[in-house]
């Protein structure tokens, strides 16, 4: 589904000396979508993002946006904008001047650029604090300002590197809703790096899972969650067990595993309370630990304790064959 406004990575590679941080990846991001780049620490997410932004040189390959190769352009001429993990707000400038910064660099006169800055501050609901310095803002407020500053350049693609990781969990959930809302309102592509799968699932139209410098799987969130291509993706997305049946590896969702009167014999090894659900971990012979996720009612009506022998069962249709 290619359009004229795609962001395309062609054979994109990044080397730092001998380490290959990004290994010849190819991907087309649809315009106007919310994409989450997901993967464990060190898999090359930031490197990819920073190459797209122009803060890291491309070792090999190309980056195409709306058809033109932007990989040699300076960051500001690429049609991208970046929001940094720690926000990187200029500490010596007021909120308003931070947002107006790019206009000032372009030589836009003061009233015009301030008017525009205020407009964006309205958008992120920060207009009343326009005169403050970044140090006088809470984390959530700083995040909004950083967003406004990135958006003032009217980018086609907004790049966000772990934008929520500096916030406490409560705030994180609130701010992710705002990100989603903004993306929908503006209709531009958001490319959001995270290593939280819940964040990715909640936000993304498309999830791109990276591992070991390559893209392991990409697709709509639901597709990636429900049909993980590899064992790595299955484990990393969470909510899955990997079981070996007839020498084949399969993923089965934890909420599809039942404690039944017959099935795979196993022993309960751990119980984790999750509020409205309970995760029961059981060890079956020749398998890695298998988690059965059950509602609290079901769990407490059953009185299951560690050490207890149980049988694990699932509907055959819920088994998903893994490719690697």
């Amino acid at each position, binding site marked *: 589904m290619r359009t004229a406004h795609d962001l395309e990575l062609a054979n994109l590679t990044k080397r730092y000396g001998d380490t290959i941080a990004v290994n010849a990846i190819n991907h087309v991001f649809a315009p106007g979508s919310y994409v989450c780049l997901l993967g464990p620490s060190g898999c090359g997410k930031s490197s990819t993002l920073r190459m797209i932004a122009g803060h890291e040189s491309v070792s090999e390959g190309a980056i195409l946006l709306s058809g033109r190769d932007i990989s040699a352009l300076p960051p500001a001429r690429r049609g*991208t904008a970046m929001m940094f993990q720690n926000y990187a707000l200029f*500490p010596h400038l007021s909120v308003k001047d931070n947002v107006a910064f790019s206009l000032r660099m372009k030589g836009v006169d003061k009233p015009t650029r301030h008017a525009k800055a205020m407009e964006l501050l309205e958008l992120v609901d920060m207009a009343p604090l326009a005169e403050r310095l970044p140090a006088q803002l*809470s984390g959530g407020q700083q995040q909004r300002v950083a967003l406004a500053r990135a958006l003032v350049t009217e980018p086609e693609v907004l790049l966000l590197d772990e934008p929520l990781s500096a916030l406490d969990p409560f705030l994180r959930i609130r701010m992710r809703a705002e990100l989603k809302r903004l993306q929908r309102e503006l209709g531009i592509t958001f490319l959001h790096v995270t290593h939280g799968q819940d964040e990715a699932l909640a936000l993304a139209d498309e999830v791109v899972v990276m591992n070991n410098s390559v893209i392991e799987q990409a697709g709509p969130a639901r597709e990636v969650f429900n049909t993980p291509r590899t064992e790595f993706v299955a484990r990393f997305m969470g909510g899955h067990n990997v079981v070996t049946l007839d020498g084949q590896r399969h993923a089965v969702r934890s909420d599809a595993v039942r404690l039944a009167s017959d099935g795979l014999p196993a022993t309960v090894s751990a119980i984790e309370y999750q509020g409205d659900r309970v995760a029961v971990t059981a060890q079956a012979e020749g398998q890695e630990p298998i988690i059965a996720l059950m509602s609290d009612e079901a769990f407490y009506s059953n009185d299951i304790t560690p050490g207890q022998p149980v049988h694990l069962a699932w509907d055959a249709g819920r088994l998903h064959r893994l490719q690697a």
Partner: protein
Amino acid sequence: MEKRPRSFYVLSLFFALFVLFLYGPTLTIGILSFQGPEGGLTFPMRGVSLNWFHELFQQQAVGDIWGAFRRSFALGLMVMVTTVVVSVMAGLAFRKKFPGSGLLFYLTIASLVIPSILISLGVGLIFNQLGLKVHWATSGFGSQLTWTLPFGLLIMFAVFNRFDKSYEEAARDQGATAWQTIRYVVLPIIAPSLIGVALFGFTLSYDEFARTLLTAGSYNTLPLEIYGITTNVTTPVIYALGTLTTAFSLLIIGAFLLTAWVMARRRARHGSDAGKGV
């Protein structure tokens, strides 16, 4: 308030003694600068007066304190500005890897540790051999830079070690050119440390003796002048000078702190949500 451990009081006393030790001579100078007109450089006091402060502004029997002060002040400012500019540039250079950076770094360290008199001697010899005129604003200036620049550069290392690169990336992202990034982002952020570099540069220059000794030329800088003056009968005038300098520094530091305080107050007007989970 937390209860203080006993070591706090012991150390406070130690610190107080240290300050007293530091200020001892300054205080001695301070007291003796109020000698009566008959008084000398040593105790006992012979009367109390402002005579020597008055005398300080008259012509002395020998030497030209104010001329030397003007020169030292001008030289101090020259050195200060140059130190700031050159250190910042070099500091920026050292953030990238460039061929020769290691060598330049060790040269800088050598410049720091080389005994001052050698610079004085060497620069004097060179100018002599090349038939150039030594002058405080040329040879003297250059010699002092070999002392202030290493300090400036070390401070810049400290500053840039703590400088978050993402500020620059953010600026580039916002369309700032390399120069605009430095002008509108890097320099303003490191400005407070530059004040430190500037003060350091000025003080080191203002007080430099050995490196200027053989490189100042026809006209003395203040330390040389003070030393030259001691070849005639000296009076508490030089103490009055010391006292005034100290008072002047106190004033500058006071003004500095006051400005910082006022600015903090002004900023606080807008309130703060820092640290709040909103």
